[in-house]
Every structure is written in structure tokens, then in C-alpha cells.
């Protein structure tokens, strides 16, 4: 009997039958006198989970600019090596002890350089992992692939294993891994369990930074000072957000991250303007009527908040699907509340959420 598809006929095996053995794992080979072995799937891990890495972006081909920098860097490294070797030989020529000290210092410098490099590379890799996770999660929400979603959640759990505030969420999520939940639902569930506390914290960080920038801009005597301050705050904001979401960047990955955020901001800037232009005008206009410095402060705070929101988009390991994306108006009402009104006009969290919903 031929079928249009690969078909195996139905069958049933009584568990109390003499020729059937029931095991928990598939590791054990069945003894030869038991022709049928039943392996219970206590967890889905029993199934081999394979991760398709082809989704990652393809490497760009070698380009002349890259080659130039590599060659130049090599030359500089050689020159430095030569100079240091020369220095140490000179030191030895002058005095034996001085030579040893020089050698020890050079070795120390080399070792710490290697460690720094390794950490930077790890940081960059972690950043790449997070980006990769987010891309795959976005695909999974559309594709609904159960096996891959499970693998993704495992990776997420691994990424967040050192975050104490997620202990409960992680435990809940691990409990749900054994159930039959579809791919997109699994990703949403993971987002709700793991990202909720982080998102709240991120919101607080951003609004605190924005408030700080607003106050300093309004009070600072010189434009240079607030320029520097805005720049420094933005950088530290990215760094703290990155730590919050588990990226833990080094210097290089921070630079890379900041570049991504700026690019993202530039790309989504047009979109963001349209939905919050009224608020900007309103906020700026009213504040500017009170004082020009105050208006400037609000504007700078707004920019910082937007920068922070862009950073979240880049750093968050999962896209916003189950949870609402924090919005500028939402954050700015917090900033303005603490900035303009002080204690008597502290907006409640409910009204913030309500305004976010209304948008």
C-alpha cells in the first residue's frame, strides 16, 4: 500500500507486556531480550535540539580599509615591540637590576593587554549573541517554531543566570519549558517573565538620566559644560542599560554599541518625531515661556530620553512583543513632573501607563 507521504502504520504497546521495558532516558541500550523500549519524554530535552545558525548575518568580504588598518596596526605593534625590546636591552646594559624590573613591567603590560583584549572580545561576542537572540526571537514570533523557541529560551536563561532579580521569573520559565507551548507564545512568555523587571529598571535609569541632564543644562553657566555633561551622561546611560540587560560591555563593545544606538536613532528619528512632536512643542514651548534656560534643559532631557529608548531597542535581547514599548511621552512626563512640579506634582505610575495606553 503506497501513500503519498511517509506513513507508518499505527501500533500500540501495553506497558505491562513482558517484552516492553520503560526507561526514563534514551541513553541505556535495551537488553537484547526486550525488543521494545519506551522512553518517556519527561522533558523536551530528550529530543535533540539543533540550532540553525544560518540566520546570522553573513560576514562582509575583506575590504581595503580594514586591510589598511590591520597592516598599520601590525606595523605599530612591531615598532612598539622593537622599542620595548630596545629599551630592555639598554636597561640591562646599564644595570642588571634595572633590566629585570623593566622586563617584569613589560611582561605585566603584555599579560594585562592580552586579558583586556580577551575581555573585549568576549564583550563583543556577548553583544553579537544578544543581537542574534533578538533577530531569532523576532523570526520566531512570526515563524512559530517550537523546537527553536525552546532552544532560544535556554540561551536566554543562560544569559540571565547571574541576575538575581530574575530568579523567580527564571524558575517559572523553567517550569513551563516541559509543557507544550508554541514558539511565538514561548517567546512572549519569556519576555513577560524575564524582561518585565528589567524594563522597569531601564525606565527608571532613563528618566533619572534625563532629569539630571535637564537640571544641569538649566543651571550650568557655560554651554561647553552641558555639552560635555550630556555626552558623558548618554555614554554612561548606554553602559548601565547594557549591564542591566546582560550585555556587560567592554570599552570596544561600548563604542560599538553607542555607534549602533546613534545609527538607530538617526534611522528611527523621523518616526519618533512625528509621534511626539506635539509633546515636544508643548513641553518646550511652555517651559521656554518660563525661561530660555529651562526650555533648553527640557529639550536636552528629551534628547537623552530618546537616546536611552534607542539604546533599549539595541540592547534588549528580545523584541517588544508581549510588553508595551516605553514611550517618550511616558518618560518625559516623569521627567517634567520631577523637574517642573517638584513634590506636589509627582505623577503616579498609573497615569503614566494610562498615557502610554492612550497613545
Amino acid at each position: 500500500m503506497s501513500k503519498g507521504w511517509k506513513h507508518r502504520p499505527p501500533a500500540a504497546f501495553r506497558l505491562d507486556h513482558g517484552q516492553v521495558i520503560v526507561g526514563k532516558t534514551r541513553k541505556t541500550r535495551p537488553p537484547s531480550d526486550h525488543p521494545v523500549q519506551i522512553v518517556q519524554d519527561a522533558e523536551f530535552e530528550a529530543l535533540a535540539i539543533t540550532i540553525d545558525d544560518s540566520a546570522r548575518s553573513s560576514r562582509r568580504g575583506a575590504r581595503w580599509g580594514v586591510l589598511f588598518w590591520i597592516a598599520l596596526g601590525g606595523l605599530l605593534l612591531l615598532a612598539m615591540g622593537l622599542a620595548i625590546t630596545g629599551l630592555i636591552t639598554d636597561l640591562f646594559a646599564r644595570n642588571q637590576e634595572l633590566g629585570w624590573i623593566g622586563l617584569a613591567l613589560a611582561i605585566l603590560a603584555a599579560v594585562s593587554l592580552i586579558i583586556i583584549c580577551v575581555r573585549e572580545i568576549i564583550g563583543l561576542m556577548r553583544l553579537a549573541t544578544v543581537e542574534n537572540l533578538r533577530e531569532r526571537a523576532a523570526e520566531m514570533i512570526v515563524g512559530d517554531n517550537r523546537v527553536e523557541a525552546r532552544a532560544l529560551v535556554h540561551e536566554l536563561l543562560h544569559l540571565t543566570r547571574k541576575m538575581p532579580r530574575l530568579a523567580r521569573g527564571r524558575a517559572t520559565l523553567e517550569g513551563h519549558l516541559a509543557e507544550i507551548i508554541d514558539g511565538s507564545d514561548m517567546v512572549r512568555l519569556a519576555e513577560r517573565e524575564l524582561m518585565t523587571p528589567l524594563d522597569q529598571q531601564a525606565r527608571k535609569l532613563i528618566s533619572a538620566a534625563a532629569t539630571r541632564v535637564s537640571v544641569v543644562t538649566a543651571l550650568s553657566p557655560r554651554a561647553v559644560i552641558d555639552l560635555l555633561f550630556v555626552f558623558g551622561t548618554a555614554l554612561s546611560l548606554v553602559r548601565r542599560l547594557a549591564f542591566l540587560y546582560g550585555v556587560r560591555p567592554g570599552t570596544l563593545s561600548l563604542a560599538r554599541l553607542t555607534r549602533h544606538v546613534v545609527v538607530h536613532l538617526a534611522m528611527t528619528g523621523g518616526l519618533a518625531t512625528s509621534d511626539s512632536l506635539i509633546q515636544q512643542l508643548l513641553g518646550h514651548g511652555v517651559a521656554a515661556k518660563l525661561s530660555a534656560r529651562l526650555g533648553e534643559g527640557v529639550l536636552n532631557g528629551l534628547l537623552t530620553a530618546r537616546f536611552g529608548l534607542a539604546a533599549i531597542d539595541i540592547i534588549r535581547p528580545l523584541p517588544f512583543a508581549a510588553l508595551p514599548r516605553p514611550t517618550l511621552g511616558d518618560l518625559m512626563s516623569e521627567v517634567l513632573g520631577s523637574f517642573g512640579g517638584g513634590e506636589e506634582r509627582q505623577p503616579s505610575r498609573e497615569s503614566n501607563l494610562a498615557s502610554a495606553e492612550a497613545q
Partner: protein
Amino acid sequence: MSRAAGKASLVYRPIRNLVVAEFIEEIRLAARALAEFGVHLFNPTIRLGVTGLSRAGKTVFITALVHGLVRGGRFPVFEALATGRIARAYLAPQADDAVSRFDYENHINALVDKRSWPTSTRQISELRLVIEYQSLSGYQHTLTLDIVDYPGEWLLDLPLLTKTYEIWASESLRLSRQRPRADLAKDWHAHLATLDPEGMEDEQQALTAARLFTEYLRACRDNNYAISLLPPGRFLMPGDLANTPALTFAPLELSTEGPPPAGSLWAMMRRRYESYRSVVVRPFFRDHFARLDRQIVLVDTLAAINAGPDALLDLEQELGQVLDCFQTGRKTILSALLRPRIDRILLAATKADHLHHTSHDRLETILKHLTQRATAQAELAGAQVDVVALAAIRATREAMVRRGRQELPCVLGVPIAGETIAGEIFDGETEAAIFPGDLPDDPTDLLRSDNRFHGSVTFPQNADFRFLRVRPPVLEFTEKGVPALPHIRLDRALQFLIGDRLV
């Protein structure tokens, strides 16, 4: 000339009556919708239609849903409950005093204590569930959920709303002459041959015809020859209308067109068919289906696949006809005022626990294929449609069976006494690992006419699929002593059906 004109007016009169009746019906519906709109403004209510043919699992679904909401089930994907925004849910007195209450307590006790599934539903029952929740913006709200349970056989009647007696009679006859059914209809066909539609009306003849016709319908259902396409449904599950004239009619062999001669058997049958529609079908539709907000259509796809290609084709047609009866589409203010529409439909392939989870996607594809026309129509009208493989109560665990070099993805469960597979008969106590057969990736393979698969009706010994019915699981209890009902994707179904109203 004048005779021909008179005949034409006679032909058109019933149609005009039909139009007037429909118009009055629409006005009634609109008036009620308007009244309900006012009430719902202050007390948000969802009428959830649980639609399904008999044995599709409506009662079990409602029981599991109510239990999960009231006693706090494990619903990770149902956001409002998982994040703790639902403060509590409780059963409230239902709106309709004339309808009996859904016997949730007894059903759950039977499931937990006796480990038996609920018996088939014999009458209509209703349930009202009130959910107290906190919206995302922090306000306290309540949402009322009205659910109706009814015998699945009655659903078969809905397509009759648009059919005249003559059309129904010829369709029923055509179906009864097709192959596996023809054997069961032998007695009835023999009696039918003795009847003269244009002869004098005779109560005894009508009684015999109705009895034989009912026996044929019942035989079809019991032998799993066809699990659907057996209207009128009240013949199978009469409720309190047994032996009334409205249930004493049968199809006749009609050779001529035009109106029946006055006082003939044909006229009598036709009159009774009409009163069946106006006494039974229309009120049923009006009271329970015309004002639904959300709908879940439970389909026991596996039973149809079990029975064979004919049953599967039957199911496809019946689903199409039933789904055509519902008003679907995007909700607008006007529609909310005058004619409620169903804006979300969930098509659920039930009893997904009879399959290993790796085959669930295929099951969903098959159901999607069976309902594709109705789905496309609903989506065009602006309704959201989703397809899901679901088990309201999961009665099996999963296992991998290794036999020689073969690995078979199986489910572990206790088959109900009397279920057979490959010559083995189960006693209802023994646990077994069941491999039901591989479903195809492409659903059209199941419906191909040239290479039909073997159903268990025609090939009881070497059927291609055997989905065994299994007993309810031994339940674990939570720390509070509440039985936790395991399920597959019930939370996803809830999220789709009412999740958006709980934000």
C-alpha cells in the same frame, strides 16, 4: 395562460413568506441587540459561542475553562491570569432563567473521581462567569462571560435555515444512496418506495417514515460512517420535543416541481418541516448563535480521520455549512447596535493529546485545509481567525518507543475499555503506548480521490490511523487540594478569545 400565472404566484408565495419571516426575525434581533448594547455599556459581557458537532468535546472544554479560571489553572500564555491581573473569577447566576445551568460541579467530580468523560449532552445549558480583573492602567473592572453548552447534534440544523423542504429532501436522499450509508438506509428506502407524495396525507405513513428515517440517522452516527451531515439534529437528540408532529416527517421522493397538491402527504411533510424550522431551529439560532461576540469551533478532526476519507469529506462540508450561518466581521458601532458580529473565531482541533506534539502542526494544517473557504470569508469580512490544536484536558503523556531500529513518537495513556488497535482489545485499566500513525505534511494527501487512505470503517483490521480514546488522567493536586487539570494550548485559546478584552 391564467392557470400558468396562478401557478407562478403559488410558487412565489412561500418565498415571499420566507422573506417576510426573515425580515421580522432581523427586526427582532436588532431590537434585542439594541437593548443588550445598553446593558453591556455598564457591564461588559462576552458571549462565547462554543460550537462543535457531537463528541467534539464541548462539555469538557467548558468544564476545563471554568475550572482553570475559577480555581486558578496553570495558564502561562493567558497573560491576564499569568501576570496576576485577574483578582478572581466566580460563577454567577445566569441571565436566562428558562435554561438549565451547566453542571460544572458534577462534570468536574466525574472527571476527577471516576476518571470518566462527561456523557453526551442531552439538553441546552448555560453558565455565567464573572471575571474581576485590574486593567493595565490600574482600574478595577469586571468582565462577564456567558457560555452555552448544547447537544452537538442540534448544530446540524443551522444549515436548514436556508433550505426549503424540497431541497433538503433531495439532498438527504442523495446522501442516503451513497455507498456506506446505503446499506443502513435499506429499510427506510423500502418503505419510501411504497409512499406516494401526491397521495392523501396519512398520519401512520408519516410516523413509520419518520421512525425508519430516524433509525437510519442513528445507525449512521453510531457506526461512525459519518459523524456529520445528518440533519435534522433533533431526530437524533429530541430533547422535550419527542413524538411531536414537528418531529414526525421524513424526506420524500419528489419527481415533480411546483407546489404540493392540497391535502397530500407531500404537503403534510412540508408543513411539518416548516414548523420544525420555526419551532426548533430558528429559536435555537436566535437565542444562542445570533448574538455571539467570540466563537470557538471545536472539531474532532482525529475521529473523522479515524473513520475514513468519507467521514473527513462529510466533516469538511458540514463545517462549511455551519460556519456559513454565523455573522462574522469587524466590530463597528453600527453592528454592535443592530446586529452583533463575531470578530474572533478560533478553530480548534480537539483531542490533540492523542497525538505526539511533533504532529500537532500537521493536525492544524489539516483543520486549516478543511475550513479554508469559511476562514477566507471570515477574514475578508474583517474577523480574526486562528487555528490551534488543543486538548482541554490532557489525558496522555508522551514517549518515544524504540522497536528495533524504528523510533515511534507515542502517547502514553489508558485506553477506554473496548478500544482496539491491531487486534488488541483494551480493558480500560492497562496503560499503553499508542502510535496512531503518521499524519501527512500535506493535508491534500488525505482528501485525494485516487489514493484514498484506509479508514477503520471499511478496513477495521488494517486502518492507516487509530486514534484511541483514552480515560481522563490521574490528576495531581495543588497545595490547596485543588485538582490541576493538565491541558494543551487551552491558555493560548483563552488568550486569543478573551485576552484582548482584559487589557
